């Protein structure tokens, strides 16, 4: 048997650098989401508004062919492709509702499951930091949300130009691609952080799923109740959906749906994002310390 000298000789190698340490977390999160039948169904369904609006883009260029379908000028106006068209797509009830449903199926367990199964200490005994972990989890949800926002938004512009056979549309609204990118980023980041906030608050995925859905719906109900009672539009600030619609109007340079300064909506949603970051900083740690 060889005799080994006790002690450690300084290692001369270089530690392995991982350029994107968050990527394996994201990859796994996306893979696991697609394993759920319910998620696949909802995710596919979430593209339905995009197809309807894409059809709208086509109809807008063939308006004469569909003349018999329009009985009033207002219905014809609906098929006008302009910034309001984009605002409508990005802040319509169905798209926001489907996004929330995607969060229910793909986002509820992202942190809650790791808390439940003590997986955080397994993550944090690897060469990744807390930032990488959060970034990895965020990227899972951003992937799904950006597929539903940026991709259709830019496709609408491209198809509008293809169907029109000219660049007139983009020349009329050169700022529109930036608005799409800006609002998509804001909307996706907000919904992602909103989901991860709730996911980090509880170990039970089902409970988190209910919370994600209930908080969104309850904020809307609360606004409805107060508005009915006081007829004051400022109560729209209580509703997540209304705040998002206000910001969408700002990004797409159209009239706000509520007579409330858009900065308030921006501040409220940003505050929720900051709370989410603060809660995650506190909740996400390798070892659960019980005092």
């Amino acid at each position, binding site marked *: 048997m060889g005799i080994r000298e006790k002690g*450690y000789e300084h290692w001369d190698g270089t530690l392995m650098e991982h350029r994107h340490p968050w990527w394996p977390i994201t990859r796994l999160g996306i893979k696991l989401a697609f394993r759920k039948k319910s998620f696949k169904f909802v995710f596919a369904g979430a593209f339905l508004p995009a197809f309807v609006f894409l059809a709208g883009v086509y109809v807008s260029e063939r308006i004469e062919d569909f003349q018999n379908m329009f009985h009033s000028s207002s219905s014809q106006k609906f098929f006008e492709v302009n910034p309001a068209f984009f605002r409508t797509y990005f802040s319509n009830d169905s798209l926001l509702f489907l996004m929330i449903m995607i969060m229910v199926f793909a986002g509820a367990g992202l942190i809650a499951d790791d808390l439940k199964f003590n997986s955080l200490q397994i993550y944090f005994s690897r060469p990744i*930091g807390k930032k990488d972990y959060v970034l990895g989890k965020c990227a899972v949800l951003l992937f799904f949300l950006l597929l539903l926002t940026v991709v259709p938004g830019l496709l609408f512009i491209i198809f509008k130009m293809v169907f029109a056979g000219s660049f007139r549309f983009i020349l009329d609204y050169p700022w529109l691609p930036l608005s799409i990118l800006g609002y998509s980023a804001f909307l996706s980041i907000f919904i992602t952080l909103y989901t991860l906030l709730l996911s980090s608050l509880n170990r039970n995925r089902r409970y988190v799923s209910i919370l994600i859905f209930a908080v969104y719906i309850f904020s809307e109900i609360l606004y409805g109740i107060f508005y009915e009672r006081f007829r004051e539009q400022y109560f729209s600030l209580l509703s997540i959906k209304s705040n998002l619609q206000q910001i969408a109007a700002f990004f797409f340079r159209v009239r706000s749906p509520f007579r409330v300064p858009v900065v308030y909506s921006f501040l409220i949603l940003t505050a929720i994002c900051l709370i989410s970051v603060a809660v995650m900083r506190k909740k996400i740690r390798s070892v659960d310390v019980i005092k």
Partner: protein
Amino acid sequence: MTAVIETRSLSKWYGNVLGLSDVSLSIEPGVIGLLGPNGAGKSTFLKLITGQLKPSIGGARVFGQIIWNNPKLFSRIGFCPEADAFFEDLTGWEFLVNLLRLHGFSGAEAKRRSERTLEIVELVKDKDRLIRAYSRGMRQRLKFAQAIAHDPEVIILDEPMSGLDPLGKRKFIRLIRDYRGEGRTIIVSSHVLPEIEALTKNIILIHQGKILATGDIHDVRELIERHPHIISLRVSDRRRLAGRLVKEDFILDVRFEKRPDTLVIETRQRDKFFSLLPALVLEEQIEVEEITSPDDNLQAVFDYLVGK
């Protein structure tokens, strides 16, 4: 030359509760057993030296670098936590591959290493089953697998055999023994003495957040002057041997056991006894069948040190 793990005045409080108090240690390569009862501070110590917890006072260095907030260093450390910590929706295979990807290994390399590690822990047959369907023993082996898959230089195992049946424990002990070569540092914590005894003679005794003793079990034993060694001998003529031994001043007690060939002696100078014994048995032409130290185990040392 430096120690692999060094701690200086390492202390941790959980609010008002003391987890670990003023621990200064140097740990060198080899298998080291961290021994103490439940709540002694073993897990706290291991979490501190793996950078999972921030020390309240003092610090821990691994390979000469501060471990806290230094995730790059985790590539060289394998940690097997006490509690189950799995992604239950994954198969054993997926679990390992994904953890290896977190270390920065390519997909192909992660798969190759997973395959090799699952072979080591004998889980190849069950690699495609969901972890939630794994038995306790399989889970423990998988936990060990994730700690060794990236080929770390330091392996830290927190109560790796808890909850295993005797057969599972034997398998696990064999697994760690097979793996202890190659100059690695393996720290195994347990509150079950025979588990540690089966793995190593190098121990750290911990109790109420304090290190009671460190070193070879025999060195620790030397510290206990008031607690003599008991040595049992099975010999062909116990009366003759007893007659010679009682004449020696370092022999405190000689007694006969029920078994007709067994003699038990007590001494504080174990080494002196063992250097004298060969000469005695040669002179007296006595055949020695067996020499054992019934109390030369961790239980006796531990009980003594904690004042039981």
